[in-house]
């Protein structure tokens, strides 16, 4: 426990967290919008989205990808390793994440960062549920079943 806490790269972790919070606050304070990445993304694949109402969503997502790349180039930080999962597990995981966040109306950003800040009981409940489910799922797949994930 103590050594786990000592191993955290606090400068980058906390400044990264502040950047995420600032981004969510900007979108909320100026545009009145929730920075929920799944909501923003999945509304783009609904039937008949018009470009005039979806332009801001595309811009946010383009910024998301570009911001990540800019960080790596400006700080000369190497890209992280890709996930260790096999192809079927990657597909299964993606399907579960897409289906579940659609059904539960949000993910880590929408419920976790924005919803909690609104003191929304739905978001606080959802965050507790997906965190607990993630802990249990990883324990079962990695430790009980011994899968390489």
């Amino acid at each position, binding site marked *: 426990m103590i050594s786990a806490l000592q191993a955290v790269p606090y400068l980058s972790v906390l400044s990264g967290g502040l950047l*995420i919070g600032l981004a969510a606050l900007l979108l909320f304070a100026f545009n009145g919008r929730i920075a929920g990445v799944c909501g923003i993304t999945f509304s783009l694949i609904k039937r008949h989205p018009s470009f005039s109402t979806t332009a801001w969503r595309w811009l946010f997502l383009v910024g998301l990808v570009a911001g990540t790349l800019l960080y790596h180039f400006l700080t000369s930080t190497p890209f992280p390793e890709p996930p260790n999962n096999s192809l079927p597990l990657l597909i299964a995981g993606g399907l579960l994440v897409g289906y579940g966040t659609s059904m539960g109306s949000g993910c880590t950003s929408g419920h976790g960062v924005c919803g909690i800040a609104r003191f929304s009981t739905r978001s606080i409940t959802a965050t507790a*549920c997906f965190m607990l489910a993630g802990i249990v799922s990883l324990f079962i797949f990695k430790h009980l079943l011994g899968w390489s994930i």
Partner: protein
Amino acid sequence: MNQKVIALLAGLLFGAGLAASGMNDSNVVQGFLDVSGAWNPSLMFVMAAALMLTIPGFQYFLRRKPILAQSFKLPNLKNIDRQLVTGAIIFGVGWGLVGLCPGPAIAALGYLNWEGIVFVLAMLAGAKFRQLQVA
């Protein structure tokens, strides 16, 4: 400044924040969920730092109006229902399995590795399936 500029700027900052904090690395995220293994508490501090800004900021603006928009676009649903809980649990299972949630999954597309691209395509398929189911 208009809303499109804000959206792009927010995306840039969000993407930089995910990369800086290590949240684009599925191993760091799985390390947080791996409470019985080599636990990595990073994610907890990332969320705490983000909430340190969003809690006071959101509470301040909720009592006012958005600076550039007419009103806040907030979810209408208020009750905790089975969909919310079941959906969050399904999401959590996939999150534990791969270590990617939608934000980092999209942000990591720029790394151009096939694992991330396959994951995002499957994620979109899962969301589309849900949309067709409730349509």
